[in-house]
């Protein structure tokens, strides 16, 4: 689906919602006795269908993009 994409074909509209001052300073809890609790986390598939690192590569899902194309994400070293 992604092949043949060139600059000008796609009008990419990016709506940026930037969270300022994000903090992960939630109150720490000892969760050693808890089980999967997905309330509010949007992560109800904990443990099921997890990605396997033993998957062989399927290279059909990546194609060239125009260097003029506005990216929606970045794969940078971190």
């Amino acid at each position, binding site marked *: 689906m992604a092949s043949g994409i060139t600059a000008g074909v796609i009008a990419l509209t990016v709506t940026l919602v930037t*969270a300022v001052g994000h903090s992960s300073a939630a109150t720490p809890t000892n969760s050693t006795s808890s089980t999967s609790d997905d309330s509010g986390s949007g992560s109800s598939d904990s443990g099921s269908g997890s990605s396997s690192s033993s998957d062989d590569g399927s290279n059909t899902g990546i194609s060239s993009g125009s260097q003029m194309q506005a990216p929606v994400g970045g794969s*940078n070293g971190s």
Partner: protein
Amino acid sequence: MTAHVYVTRAWSCTIRLAVTDAAVLADAAADLDALLDRVDRLASRFRPDSSLSIANAKAGRPVPIPRMLSDLVKAALDTAAYTAGAVDPTVGLVMHRIGYDRDIAEIPRHGPAVVASAAGLGWQDVRLHHEAGLLTVPLGTALDLGATAKAYTADHAARALYRRYGTGALVELGGDIATAGLSASGWPVRVAEHEGGPGQVVVLSHGGLATSTTVLRRWRRGGKNVHHIVDPRTGAPVGGRWRTASVYATSALAANSASTAALVLGEHAVDWLGERRLAARLVGVDGEVHTTPGWPAVTHTAAA
């Protein structure tokens, strides 16, 4: 294509969420934030009260752990098996020894020399009863899930958001990218050693993409550069042929497993990637870029 993007910071890195349905962006972003906080409380090595730190502190004894941490540890052990130990989660004490014992922003830039040692490393000695949620960290070692937790969480989040909201979703956690659902024209993503650096735009229709590098998260010990990617065979930061590896695979976890392994494997990385038919972009220590079959060509050179 119209993509709606949420950007924030967590885990000392940039977080992006792109969705195809603008109406769900705010709710999806809140879900992602909650998930990141949850994983941090479970698996952070820098929080003494995290479930992982508690298990590490009780090394040698079985410790009950929450289901999601069990999933994270399983992903790390699967990765270790897939890479034949090139990516080993038992490097926790090695990380501590080389100075990575706190958030990267808080690590002193300089310090005394460190002595590399692989003594005690061995992912095969980790005992995980996944279904029961019981983890035994080998005595004399500590788990560090830093090599796999971001990618696992990106996959988890993308799938969960797609299932909950029916929207195409791309989740980027510090350069580890997962996708789920459809985007009519694919997801344009910029691949680079560091944000804003020279690189290449590729388009993903599905799957995951990850980049590992030794050029970031660096500090100095004994007058030498030290970084966060450790060769489990030596217990020292890797110093092989490649300084950066980007890999496309069926998931972010598979991609990150391979990109990290590629740096550890050095001269053998190209053959290893080829045997697994993984498309990759490798940057040598001299800056030269090498790609494996399946990696898309640059349509025209980006500004360097």
